[in-house]
């Protein structure tokens, strides 16, 4: 494993080094030390490498990730794995606002809690939060799966499109056009797979599914009070 001391080598050198890794690289394991809450750590990666960040990160850790596995052994600041395309991001601690925002693919695992707007405008990413999530999570979520093993805050799934939301605990309130839906076998299959891949021992049958009521998909003046 190669070790990069962020404090000594600087952010630009760190990201340039990781971004330069190719598909066929034999140097597949990297460790980042002295992260100290720095922003934009391991952003724009595009190779099947494994990056371990020892410590907590600032904003946008693993932003726009492709292929790589980024493991944060601490907590993550706002915009964790924003617009992720593929790969895996795992955070041992908590995640701040906008975790997984606009993500298009890959798997984001948050083993602690996630703050507000988790999964905002998600576009295909799978997110599993072992703890709770904050208010306005999955706002305008378009596609993908958000799994919450704990509780969800206010206005879950407001203005939701086609993303699937699975919550094991309580939901403080649902947002506009979000409703509880039937948990069918195909949903249990998806949920089982995500729980297994994220290392959660929660039982799929303990979850409820939420999705779009699809009442606000086309503007209708009679729905004006909902906006």
């Amino acid at each position: 494993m190669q070790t990069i001391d962020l404090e000594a080598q600087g952010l630009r050198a760190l990201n340039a080094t990781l971004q330069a890794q190719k598909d066929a690289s034999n140097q597949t394991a990297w460790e980042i030390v002295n992260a100290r809450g720095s922003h934009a750590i391991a952003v724009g990666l595009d190779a099947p490498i494994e990056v371990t960040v020892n410590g907590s990160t600032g904003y946008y850790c693993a932003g726009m990730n492709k292929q790589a596995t980024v493991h944060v052994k601490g907590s993550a600041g706002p915009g964790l794995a924003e617009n992720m395309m593929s790969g895996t991001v795992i955070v041992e601690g908590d995640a701040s606002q906008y975790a997984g925002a606009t993500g298009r693919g890959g798997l984001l695992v948050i083993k602690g809690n996630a703050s507000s707007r988790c999964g905002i405008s998600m576009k295909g990413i799978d997110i599993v939060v072992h703890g709770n999530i904050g208010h306005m999570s999955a706002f305008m979520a378009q596609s993908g799966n958000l799994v919450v093993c704990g509780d969800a805050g206010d206005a879950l799934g407001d203005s939701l499109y086609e993303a699937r939301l699975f919550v094991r605990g309580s939901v403080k309130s649902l947002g506009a056009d979000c409703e509880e839906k039937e948990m069918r076998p195909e949903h249990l299959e998806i949920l089982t797979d995500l729980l297994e891949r994220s290392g959660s021992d929660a039982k799929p049958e303990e979850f409820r599914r939420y999705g779009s009521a699809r009442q606000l998909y086309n503007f209708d003046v009679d729905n004006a009070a909902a906006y």
Partner: protein
Amino acid sequence: MKDEQQRFVSQTVPIQSATFSNPINAEIRRAADTGIYDIRGGGAKRRVPHFDDLLFLGASISRYPLEGYREKCDTRVTLGTRFAKKPIELDIPVTIAGMSFGALSGPAKEALGRGASAAGTSTTTGDGGMTEEERGHSKTLVYQCLPSRYGMNPDDLRRADAIEVVVGQGAKPGGGGMLLGQKISDRVAEMRNLPKGIDQRSACRHPDWTGPDDLEIKILELREITGWEKPIYVKIGGTRPYFDTTLAIKAGADVVVLDGMQGGTAATQDVFIEHVGLPTLACIRPAVQALQDQGLHREVQLIVSGGIRTGADVAKALALGADAVAVGTAALVALGDNDPKWEDEYRKLGTTHGAYDDWHEGQDPAGITTQSPDLMARFDPLEGGRRLKNYLKVLTLEAQTIARACGHNHLHNLEPEDLCALTMEAAAMARVPLAGTDWYPGKAGF
């Protein structure tokens, strides 16, 4: 006798109310009929102080002009010199503003790329991602990072020549957008990760940052992903131009794009377009002041958009301190939008050429603001590109003509002292003297 007297009594002439005019009453009736506000494309149609209210003074005994057909007047502009490793070099200071694929057809985006490239300038993506037509035909392409993030991906970020973080636009500062379901073709739906046929909302705020401190970090992330190569623009709608420009600079922008209320949109509420924001003319001097106060005028470049139509407008914007301008609506007109040759079809749609603004409905007779294959087939991207190139060349020649007449060998040498204003309002907004005086409202000492 009585009938004869009545015949000669003078009658009151019917007087239309200036407050309840026919257009206003028609809108009241339309609202009563439908129960919904009017949505349309374009920018503010109301009369506001504009570049027409300014004049150039030209050369005289105290200044001498340059010979029009002999002495050079440079038009080149470099954008992104502050932090980017690879600033953009353009032959002319007139760029194409961001317009989305979805709002515009693929061939229309291709034509914008062709025309801009032929004229030596850049074009810009929009709220829908980057299309191959656009990238393939644009020598210099600016990639917008919008709140919706439709189509956003790191590969396109790296394929772009510059990145524009869109905070707002002049037609609807503080507002998001809506691409109505009738324009959501299979291709548009796929690019936006949404089902076909449903309205696609574009958020008014970015999903992963709030405020100038966050924006600074967001820009850092974009630079790190793209190796600090690309100039980062920040686009703002004209509302508080001094403070917003100051904050964009603080956040690390290489270029500030400032869009006034005459700037177009694909679709927004008419009440928003006409009643929110500042005229372009009112935005420029405060933004330039902000750049000067930070000691960064010309190092952070300013692009002004919103109602740029002629070379005179270009020259006036540059004289007030802009480094370049952007055209959107005018570019569409150059391509063939609102052309009289489609008048019969405009009438069938209940409008007329020059007034057609229902771009969101996807029935554009010119085949530009539509996703209908039949309508798109009417538009030739090669011919559209040629027309746009011609138009951009004319804008440049006109601006050069004025600059030479003012004695300048580069468009950037135009200055406020070359201008006067025809109205008090324009004098106050542009901070140039009222014609025939040495005074403008707010000038110290008066």
